[in-house]
C-alpha cells in the first residue's frame, strides 16, 4: 500500500531501549497505511528540536517543556498535532511519608520539598508555579532540588524516584513528582505503608507531536487520521499502545500548556537547553 509514498520522518528521544521497540512497532503499523513513517532517535530534546526546526525531521515527539521551547524558538510557528490520552490529563502529585498528616499544598510551608531535575516540567518548574499560585513564597519552603537527570536525555523519571528516596530517607518531608511516576510505583495502595499522595495539581498537558509549517496540512491530516485509527481492541496495535503508555491518541489540548508557558516566563527558564 505504501510502496510509493515518501515516509514521514518522526524524531524521538531515546531515553530507554524500549523506544526502539515502540518506534519499530509504529513504523510497522504505518507501513500498512497510506502514510508510512520512519524514525530518527536523538540523545536529548535539545537535538530533537534543532532537527525539527532545521527540517531534518518532519515531526518531533516532544515533552511539554520541549513543546513550549519549540514554540518560543519558532515564534509560535510550530504546531502541536496529537497527544496520548494520558498526556491531556497529566498532573503533579505531592507525596509525603504515610501518616505524616499533610492534607494539602499549604502543608509544605516551613517543610523540605524535594523536586526533580530542574528541566522537569512536572517535578520542578510547575511545582514551583503551583506553590506560587497557592501563595507560598520562595522563603516559605525549603526546596531540595535533585538534578540527577540534568544534562541527560531529558526524561526526568530518575530524578523523580530520587525525590521519593529523599522522603524515605528523611532528607525531605515531601516530594513533587509526575502522576505517571507516582502511579507506576503506587499501583493502587502498594506504597500505603510508606508513602501517600496529599495533593494533586490541576490537570495540564504533557507530550505532543510537534510539526513545523513545512509539513503540509494535507500530509499532516492524512497521517493523523491513521494515527487516531490505532485501536486498543486490536492486539497488534495494543502492544505498541501499552508500551507507549496510552489507550488512544487524541488531539492536543493547547490550554493545558498555558500554566507551563507562564511558569517558564516567571522563572526565567531559557528557550534552549
Amino acid at each position, binding site marked *: 500500500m505504501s510502496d510509493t509514498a515518501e515516509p514521514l520522518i518522526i524524531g524521538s528521544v531515546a531515553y530507554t531501549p524500549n523506544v526502539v*521497540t515502540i518506534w519499530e512497532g509504529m513504523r510497522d503499523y504505518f507501513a500498512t497505511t497510506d502514510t508510512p513513517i520512519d524514525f530518527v532517535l536523538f540523545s536529548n530534546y535539545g537535538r530533537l528540536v534543532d532537527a525539527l526546526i532545521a527540517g531534518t525531521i518532519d515531526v518531533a515527539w516532544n515533552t511539554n517543556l520541549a513543546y513550549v521551547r519549540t514554540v518560543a524558538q519558532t515564534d509560535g510557528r510550530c504546531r502541536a498535532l496529537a497527544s496520548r490520552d494520558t498526556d491531556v490529563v497529566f498532573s503533579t502529585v505531592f507525596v509525603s511519608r504515610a501518616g505524616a498528616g499533610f492534607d494539602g499544598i499549604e502543608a509544605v510551608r516551613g517543610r523540605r520539598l524535594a523536586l526533580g531535575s530542574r528541566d522537569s516540567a512536572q517535578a520542578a518548574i510547575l511545582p514551583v508555579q503551583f506553590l506560587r499560585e497557592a501563595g507560598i513564597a520562595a522563603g516559605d519552603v525549603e526546596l531540595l532540588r535533585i538534578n540527577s537527570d540534568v544534562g541527560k536525555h531529558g526524561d526526568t523519571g530518575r530524578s523523580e*524516584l530520587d525525590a521519593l*528516596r529523599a522522603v*524515605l530517607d528523611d532528607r525531605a518531608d515531601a516530594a513533587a513528582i509526575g502522576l505517571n511516576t507516582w502511579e507506576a510505583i503506587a499501583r493502587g495502595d*502498594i506504597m500505603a505503608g510508606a508513602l501517600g499522595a496529599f495533593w494533586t495539581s490541576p490537570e495540564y498537558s504533557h507530550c505532543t507531536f510537534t510539526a513545523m509549517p513545512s509539513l503540509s496540512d494535507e500530509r499532516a491530516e492524512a497521517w493523523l487520521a491513521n494515527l487516531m485509527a490505532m485501536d486498543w481492541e486490536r492486539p497488534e496495535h495494543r502492544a505498541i499502545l501499552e508500551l507507549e503508555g496510552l489507550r488512544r491518541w487524541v488531539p492536543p489540548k493547547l490550554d493545558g500548556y498555558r500554566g507551563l508557558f507562564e511558569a517558564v516566563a516567571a522563572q526565567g527558564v531559557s528557550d534552549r537547553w
Partner: protein
Amino acid sequence: MVNHGLLLDLVERLAATPVGSTVELDVSASAAGGAAASDASSATSATAASRAEEAAANIDLIARWCRASGNELAEVRAESVVVRHGRRRDPLALLDPSQLPGTRLWMYTNFDCNLRCDYCCVSSSPQTDRRALGVDRVARLADEAADAGVQELILTGGEPFLLPDIDEVVASCTTRLPTTLLTNGMLFRGGRLERLRRMDRDRLTLQISLDSATPELHDAHRGPRAWERAVGGIRLALDEGFDVKVAATLPADQAHEVAPFTQFLGGLGIRPENRVIRAIAHEGAADSGVELTVDSLIPEVTVTAEGVWWHPVAATDESHFVRAEIFPLADAIADVRERFIRHREAADRAAEWFPCS
C-alpha cells in the same frame, strides 16, 4: 520491616530494561534502596530469623507490585528476585498450532524388529526385547486422546506388524482419531496380510520407510533385499486401497539422491504431500547424525511401555525421559508442555546473558 525503597530501585531499573528482559534485585535485609539506609544499623544486629522475615516481606511487596503493574516476578532466589519487564512471551503461543505439544500422540507399539538398520534411533533388531505397550493401554490412550486435545495418533516401533494383535491395536485407535502406522512394509504376507486387510482404510495412513530410488543406499543401511521388499509392500498397500506415505532417512551427504527419489515415488503413485525426508538423528544405533537435546527439540509427546518421552526420535535416550506415569494422558501432556516452557525460558535467559555481539 519492609523496604519500600526497593520498589523505587526496581522501577528505575526496569525503565532502562528492554521489555521481555529481566533484572535481578537484591531483597535481603541489607539490600540497598531508599529506606534501607536508615535501617542499616538494625539490619546488622538482626537475627537470621528476622532477616529472613524481612526478605520475605520485601519479596511480597515486589510480588504485589508486579501483579498490579503487569510485570512478571520470574524467579525468587534466596536473597534476590528476578523481575521481567512486561509479561513473558508465552513460548506455546509462539509455536505454529500444529507444533503445539500434544497435537499428535506417538505410541511405540513394540521395540523388536525384523530388521537391524544401522541408523535405527531406538536400536531395534530381532534380538531387541518386545516391550509392547499392549492393546489395553493403547485403547485407553486413544480413549483419552481427543479430550486431551490430540488430533492424530501415530503408531510406531520396532516393527508393529510383528505383533499378533496389531489389527486390534490399530482398530482401537482408528475408531477414535485419524491414525498413522509406521512400518517397514516388508511383512505383508499370510496372517499379517490378513491383519492389514482388516484395518480401516478411511482412517489409517500407512507410513512405509524407503530411503532411495535404487536398492544400493537403502540396503546399505537396512540389509540385503530390504529395498525390493519395501517397494513390494508399498505397491501392495496402494493396491489394497490404503493411503501410503513414504518416509526416507537420508544422511546429509546424500542430498543428490533426493531428485531421483521423488521422481521414483511419483512413478509409484505417492502424492507429493505424502513424501517425507528425514535426517539421521544421533540416537539409538546411529553412531552419528543430528544431535537432539530436549532443550533444542520441540517435543512430540511419545508413549512407550516404559512411560512418557520427549520425542519419538529419542525414545530410549534417558535424557529424553519425561515420566513413568502414562495416565491420565492429559497430565502427561501438561507435564511435557510445562517442561517445554521452562526450557524455552531458560534459553531466553541464557540469550539475555550472552548477547550476540
